């Protein structure tokens, strides 16, 4: 197959644009994560995630984000393979040229970021997709849905057959079971708006009765990072992310031709600070939960 040839610089420019987009995304994601730390039973966190989950512009960006990530990985790996092929016989002596470690290890730190993403997806996103079981939550007002209310009305007015009444009662029992459990175990939090920390077994009976069961990332985070092994794996992979990002931003500027003697030092400094802020921001959550909860 003869793929259309895309010039090296064009590919690099796509990688840089996409990379900058990913960098902005990371900042937003970090901001939401930090809401986890507020001792408000997840109110801010849920509000922020709700906004991200329902806003249409954000939903479009979610698709763009996945496309961007995949494009970034495919192009960088393709470029890297060409780069390896460009030197078929390697030097005997290791290079002693003055360069930064971060810039030389982009493919490896990128690979570790990929490992992180896979782990992170299994831990969180797969729950949303229903591929993995996690914790769930449901809005209290969703529990007694309009449909159930209508059925209730109809039942009290004697409009339902005996069978239908029996069905309605069994539904109500299941819904009540959740409410009772919430009451007994204090699961409801966050001004009684949400019943949280429900297991897969808890919510299974609700299937087809109430909608609006959502993954409870708030409690999943606390559970996950309460596990020291996970926390430490996450933290180690964040170190790789830090290295990737330190070079990433300044490299993207250079690739886009934005190099100026007056601003180079600033760009370099900004890349470092941005990378450190992102990674410290992300690291705060597991560290806090692991050490103080």
């Amino acid at each position, binding site marked *: 197959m003869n793929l259309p*040839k895309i*010039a*090296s*610089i*064009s*590919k*690099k*420019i796509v990688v840089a644009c996409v990379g900058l987009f990913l960098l902005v995304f990371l900042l937003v994601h970090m901001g939401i994560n930090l809401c986890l730390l507020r001792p408000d039973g997840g109110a801010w966190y849920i509000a922020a995630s709700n906004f991200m989950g329902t806003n249409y512009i954000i939903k479009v960006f979610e698709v763009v984000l996945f496309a961007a990530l995949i494009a970034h990985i495919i192009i960088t790996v393709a*470029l890297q393979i*060409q*780069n390896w*092929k*460009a*030197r*078929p*016989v*390697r*030097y*005997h*002596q*290791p*290079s*002693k*040229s*003055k*360069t*930064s470690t971060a*810039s*030389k290890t*982009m493919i490896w730190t990128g690979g570790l970021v990929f490992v992180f993403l896979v782990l992170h997806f299994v831990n969180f996103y797969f729950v949303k997709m229903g591929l993995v079981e996690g914790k769930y939550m449901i809005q209290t007002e969703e529990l007694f849905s309009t449909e159930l209310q209508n059925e209730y009305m109809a039942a009290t007015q004697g409009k339902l057959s005996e069978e239908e009444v029996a069905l309605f009662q069994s539904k109500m029992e299941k819904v009540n079971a959740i409410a009772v459990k919430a009451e007994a175990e204090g699961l409801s939090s966050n001004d009684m708006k949400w019943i949280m920390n429900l297991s897969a077994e808890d919510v299974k009976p609700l299937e087809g009765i109430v909608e609006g069961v959502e993954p409870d990332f708030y409690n999943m985070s606390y559970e996950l990072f309460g596990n020291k092994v996970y926390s430490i794996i996450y933290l180690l992979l964040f170190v790789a992310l830090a290295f990737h990002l330190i*070079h990433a931003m*300044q*490299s993207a500027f*250079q*690739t*886009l*031709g*934005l*190099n*100026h*003697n007056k601003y180079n030092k600033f760009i370099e400094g900004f890349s470092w600070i941005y990378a450190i802020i992102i990674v410290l921001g992300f690291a705060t959550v597991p560290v806090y939960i692991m050490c103080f909860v």
Partner: protein
Amino acid sequence: MNFTLKIWRQENAKAKGRFETYKVENISSDCSFLEMLDILNESLISNKIAHPVCFDNDCREGICGMCGLYINGRPHGNDDGVTTCQLHMRKFKDGETIWIEPWRAKAFPVIRDLVVDRTAYDKIIQAGGYVSVSTGGVPDANSILIAKDKADKAMDAAECIGCGACVAACKNASAMLFVSAKVSHLALLPQGKVEAANRVQKMVEKMDELGFGNCTNTYACEAECPKLIKRSNIARLNREWICARVGKEK
């Protein structure tokens, strides 16, 4: 001074190479690296030990770009801003073991020993690294006005001697520093600007075609360039490329 040399020997392009060990003694600290190799070769010939070690060179004053050896992990050796012919033995420790390798890149195949074929660079120049009409002799002063900073930048870029150290140093064997120097010194001047959009596209296409790697902004090239060509030229090359592609001229 005395040295132990580990030199890459390879009979021809197809042969399998290997490192050979030679000892040189009583070398003056003012000897240049190539003179030291001359002394080695004389002794190899007169003592009938081996065929002399082949290496490229011409001017021996740092202006032609012919010489170029990968010495102890650095192109042009352990000194900044010099070519191999301008590297002196006082930069080494007495008794040191020195590893000498040819440039390693798919686009620069080894011809023999330490000599590599750098026609790939010529091909990139042939693709567009020139002004296609004669611009005549030296013009009258001030007949074409050029801003001082532009002239300085163009001159700095024009210093590139095409030695190939940037490719040799780069972990990706990328020729971006060389191409960017050539693109820059022409694009910055009025005589070269006219064809700039065309030139950058043709030269980059040729560079890709010849099997050089892709730049990852690691800047080993800048660290090793004997003419101290700066990375800002690569950024300019990228800018020229973007403008040319947006303009779609070809």
